[in-house]
């Protein structure tokens, strides 16, 4: 009996670790979505495409400019974030007064166009991108499994980034303005805060988070134009389960669902892509506002 349990544990432990790594991506991506939805009330369907752009910009920086992984980790989010500014100023800002659905349709269309353009330019099978020297090399022996150093770094980086975002929004003056503007934009504007600019920068920050995740993902996943669209649906489920717009919720559910998914991959691999949606359905039935959302 005990041996049985130990065996199960030995089988499950690596999956817990790997699940956390995937959860790191879910957390980072859903965090960006939550920030954007919380502030702009826009469901940013272009998030997957912006994630992909982050990875591609890193690739381009390396191949056209000789700029390596570490600078790219900062530069790529800035570049893609600037693209987000243009997108928000020229198009999305015109939709704030309309129903959610318009923002969703616009960003979904943008995602298709962006992916199409990248496919035309770079083909569909993807580009190679290696992890930085210091994080490559033989995986670390954890006793129960071998874990590549780079995956460990992904978890650390995602945790730090999530925590920073949470601190900025919950604990700083800027965050207070942001939250206030969400409640009553006109009043905050009356106090002399430039609300439209703040909204633009918030969108850019959300987009930059997606691009940051994209750079993190480049050495692990195939860097191809479809890489975002296969992830984005899961991420939306994460956001819904966590509660739309809840920062803490999206981070906790991101890691949590990565874990659940990882364990499903041992117990019943065929269901590993569905399990998150099953959980989503159950959560929506029990708590329609999500686990951390306010009804």
């Amino acid at each position, binding site marked *: 009996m005990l041996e049985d349990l130990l065996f199960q544990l030995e089988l499950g432990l690596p999956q817990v670790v790997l699940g956390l790594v995937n959860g790191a991506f879910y957390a980072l991506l859903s965090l960006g979505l939550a920030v954007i939805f919380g502030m702009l009330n826009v469901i940013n369907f272009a998030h997957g495409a912006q994630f992909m752009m982050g990875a591609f910009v890193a690739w381009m920086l390396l191949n056209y400019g000789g700029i390596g992984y570490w600078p790219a980790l900062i530069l790529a989010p800035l570049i893609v974030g600037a693209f987000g500014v243009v997108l928000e100023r020229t198009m999305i800002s015109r939709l704030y007064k309309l129903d959610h659905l318009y923002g969703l349709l616009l960003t979904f269309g943008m995602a298709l166009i962006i992916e199409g353009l990248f496919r035309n330019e770079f083909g569909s*099978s993807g580009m190679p991108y*290696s992890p930085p020297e210091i994080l490559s090399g033989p995986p670390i022996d954890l006793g129960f499994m071998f874990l590549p150093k780079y995956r460990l770094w992904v978890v650390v980086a995602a945790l730090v980034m999530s925590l920073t975002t949470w601190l900025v929004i919950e604990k700083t003056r800027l965050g207070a303005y942001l939250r206030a503007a969400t409640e009553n934009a006109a009043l905050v504007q009356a106090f002399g805060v430039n609300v439209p600019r703040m909204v633009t920068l918030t969108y850019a920050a959300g987009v930059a988070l997606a691009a940051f995740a994209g750079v993190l993902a480049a050495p692990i996943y195939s860097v*191809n134009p479809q890489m975002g669209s296969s992830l984005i649906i899961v991420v939306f489920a994460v956001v819904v389960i966590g509660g739309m717009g809840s920062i803490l919720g999206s981070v906790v559910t991101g890691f949590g669902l990565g874990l659940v998914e990882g364990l499903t991959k041992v117990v019943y691999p065929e269901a590993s892509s569905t399990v998150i949606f099953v959980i989503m359905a159950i959560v929506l039935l029990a708590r329609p506002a999500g686990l951390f959302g306010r009804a």
Partner: protein
Amino acid sequence: MAQDRRSLLKGAAAAALVPAALAGLPGRARAQANTLKIGVLNDQSGTYRDLSGPGSVQAVRQAVAEMAGKGIQVEVVVADHQNKPDVGATIARQWFDRDGVDAVIDVPTSSVALAVAAIAEEKNKVFINSGAGTADLTGSQCNANTIHWTYDTWMLAHSTGAAMVKAGGDSWFFITADYAFGHALERDTGEFVKAQGGQLLGSIRTPFPGTTDFSSFLVQAQRSRAKVIGLANAGADTINCVKQAAEFGITRRGTKLAGLLVFISDVHALGLKTAQGLVLTETFYWDMNDRTRALTQRIGDIDGGRKPTMVQAGCYAGTLHYLKAALAMGAADARKSGADVIARMKAMPTDDDAFGQGSIRADGRKIHPAYLFEVKSPEESKGPWDYYKLLQTTAAEEAFRPVAAGGCRLTRT
């Protein structure tokens, strides 16, 4: 102009039938009696774009150019089937019924290929498949209007599976894409492994599409202590598996990866550093011999510097042979009956720069040698696209499923 407009719209990739509508502009009347019309139907915007896509069109145009001035005129049209059987079938019907297309070439994605084969038979046209894998095209679903040119699942399983066991890889674990293609590939390969005295230690079915992280599956596969991990998947799935196996040091610790369907475009996407040591089967490699190198030169760079894949080479060779048969019959006769052209193609030996000399069997299977390659290490590679070293060649007669085993109704007399 039309080309420009098409590629622009392709970017938008929105409406299902836009490329089809452009390919067969209503203003263009039905083809002239002595003009043959070839339709290249494949994936122009999705996951199989790099292995077929615009490169296949380029290869077909090259074959047409080589046959120009010999008395037949040829027009080439193109459409994107988006890997959807309904879209592919609609385009094929429209091409045959309204636009006077005589032959459809390429058609990757097995489900689309089977749909188009049935329509080609119904309309008595010509269908030369290069891109799809299913061996059913020349087996249970064969017909007198279809030729399967480049490769099939049976051949891949046979070549890679049997060779790996012979080389000492006698215990296998499969990572299988959870749909018809993956299941078939796993089943066929498993049979060859067992027939050679190898052992099957297990398999994992991974959700398709939508799996990007294969590390859990790879870790489980490694726990089985199998000597070979068989990848019964394709495209991005295979790329992610190989990439992550390298990351986790699985290949470094001696486990071999067998890619059951890997194209040179996938190896390019992986980079040699990651892909080195991978064993795979193809029927065409651009750097094989003087003839293949000359052909690659003639086709030219695809999509900014890519070399042709075996699928694209098959589009060239299939078109060339089709035009030779049509020339022998006369264009007017060739346009009348697709089955007659196919019969003529089967009667004539084939000879082209891509696959050398070969022939087409009664069941529609084009046969040529199959090559087992190993991907070179970055040190071994002497230049761009110098990716493969040849491990073994299977003769044409043995590379493909025996006619009797396929159950094609054309061969039951």
